[in-house]
């Protein structure tokens, strides 16, 4: 009896979150779906009509659509690669016996607290600007021609900025994971004469497997919606070079005020994101056991 009672209590406890999230999902989704079949531009009231799949055809045929997909993948993939590899390296470094470990950790964690808008503004103006930015000044000091990061390597620059924000997160999770590694095991391996690399690949890496999955999952969720950084730095350009899917939807919604087109784009983005999510979830599903 108790278990039955407890089970229904448990349901009751879960219910508020499920209901709220369901509403939060279904209301915007429903409205978006509805608008995606309408011709509806905020700037031209009185022209609303049903257009069937017109908005979808329009969005999919956007000259920037395929490029934006590609950019999204490169951006998310690039940031994941940098933060995971960089995060592991830095975590291992900090995990060594060093002086002032606590302070090092404080310095490393800092970028995680910075507002995306602020970090984009700071990087764009104070570092990447070729005339007055610090990077430009440093390269001039060495007699080199300053690199104009945001126009010559725009996507790479965005990757750098966003990676800087997410590196601390990855590092910290990896560090926690490393610290739970059984030191006796490591010592045993050391005694057996296993080299550093062998110890890393056979012991450390497998141990961190779960941590890596978690970092990838959480970051992907946030990275797919990266937007402020692009808006502030490059506005999606030059050309389409930093236009991601989210940014493309933004141009439809808040530049053209084409609610119909933006809604169709939103639905497409949701579908694509869920495909990505499906694979991620399968990956992470194992972690939950």
């Amino acid at each position, binding site marked *: 009896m108790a278990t039955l009672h*407890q089970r229904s*209590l*448990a*349901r009751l*406890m*879960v219910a*508020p*979150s499920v209901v*709220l*999230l369901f509403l939060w999902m279904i209301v915007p989704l429903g*409205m*978006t779906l509805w608008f995606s079949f309408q011709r509806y531009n905020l700037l031209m009231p009185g022209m609303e009509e049903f257009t069937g799949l017109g908005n979808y055809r329009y969005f999919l045929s956007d000259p920037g659509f395929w490029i934006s997909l590609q950019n999204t993948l490169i951006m998310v993939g690039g940031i994941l690669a940098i933060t995971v590899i960089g995060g592991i390296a*830095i975590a291992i470094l900090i995990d060594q016996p*060093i002086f002032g470990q606590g302070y*090092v*950790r*404080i*310095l*490393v*964690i*800092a*970028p*995680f*607290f*910075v*507002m*995306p*808008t*602020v970090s984009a*503004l*700071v990087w764009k*103006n*104070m570092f990447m600007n070729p005339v007055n930015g*610090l990077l430009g*000044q440093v390269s001039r*000091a060495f007699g080199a021609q300053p690199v104009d990061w945001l126009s010559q390597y725009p996507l790479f620059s965005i990757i750098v900025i966003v990676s*800087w924000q997410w*590196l601390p997160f990855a590092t*910290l*999770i990896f560090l926690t*994971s490393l610290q*739970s590694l059984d*030191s006796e095991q490591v*010592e045993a391996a050391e005694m057996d004469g296993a080299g550093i690399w062998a110890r890393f690949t056979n012991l450390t890496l497998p141990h961190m497997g*779960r941590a890596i999955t*978690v*970092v990838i999952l*959480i970051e992907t969720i946030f990275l797919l*919606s990266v*937007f*402020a950084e692009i808006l502030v730095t490059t506005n999606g350009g030059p050309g389409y070079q930093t236009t991601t899917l989210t940014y493309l939807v933004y141009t439809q919604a808040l530049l053209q005020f084409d*609610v119909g087109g*933006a809604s169709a784009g*939103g*639905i497409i983005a949701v579908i694509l*994101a*869920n495909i990505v*999510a499906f694979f991620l*979830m399968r990956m992470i599903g194992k972690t*939950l056991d």
Partner: protein
Amino acid sequence: MARKVTNTRKWIFTCLAWGVALLIFFPILWTILTSFKTEGDAVATPPKFLFFDWTLANYREVQARSDYFSHFMNSVIIALGSTALGLLVAIPAAWAMAFQPGKQTKNVLMWMLSTKMMPAVGVLIPIYILFQRMGLLDSRTGVLIVLMLMNLPIIIWMLYTYFREIPGEILEASRMDGASLWNEIRYVLTPMAVPGIASTMLLNIILAWNEAFWTLNLTTSRAAPLTTFIASYSSPEGLFYAKLSAASTMAIAPILIMGWFSQKQLVRGLTFGAVK
């Protein structure tokens, strides 16, 4: 048996680690330094690192131009409010899922996470119209609810993974003693769950503080937090590096300080079940 570490090795690693840490921290440090320079010094060639005329003029100017305190208070209320509300809803849910898992629990969790995949930019206009009808535009309540919903999946998930680490045997034991679910929560598990809740809370405050899309678009003045404050400095006329730095420092300082003081707590919970 501690590993023997030679002093040289320790020094080498110390230097390396500090080097990397300073490199990562440098952009923030540079921003803070620049905020105390005159506009001329801010773009001087070669860059001036520490030896310049320290001035508070930029802070004065920023304060004269925008009401920092009101933005700050809004940020605090929105961040704390959405976190409190979120925890209120999330703790029971995560608790039940962790200790009374059903067949669907995992799927429900996955589904919750997937609600975060909706691109906010695409649904702004429908939500804006909805908010307008409900009179929620430029109200702290409105933003607070949206941010709560946005972060709810992450909170639930984080709490869930944390609660799962609480050993089941304790539960069994207390149940054998005939403790009701309520007492079980109150006396046995709450003390063990507090650290997890604390770090979830911290993470959520950070996420809510830094959220810049909904806060910018759903507020005007009365409810406008620091993200709106910073939006008025993004490209003013003429030389603006020092003023931008001062505004940036003012926007990030509160959360940075809070983060630093609580980083141990934050890090402990920030594993999302990655560490067993």
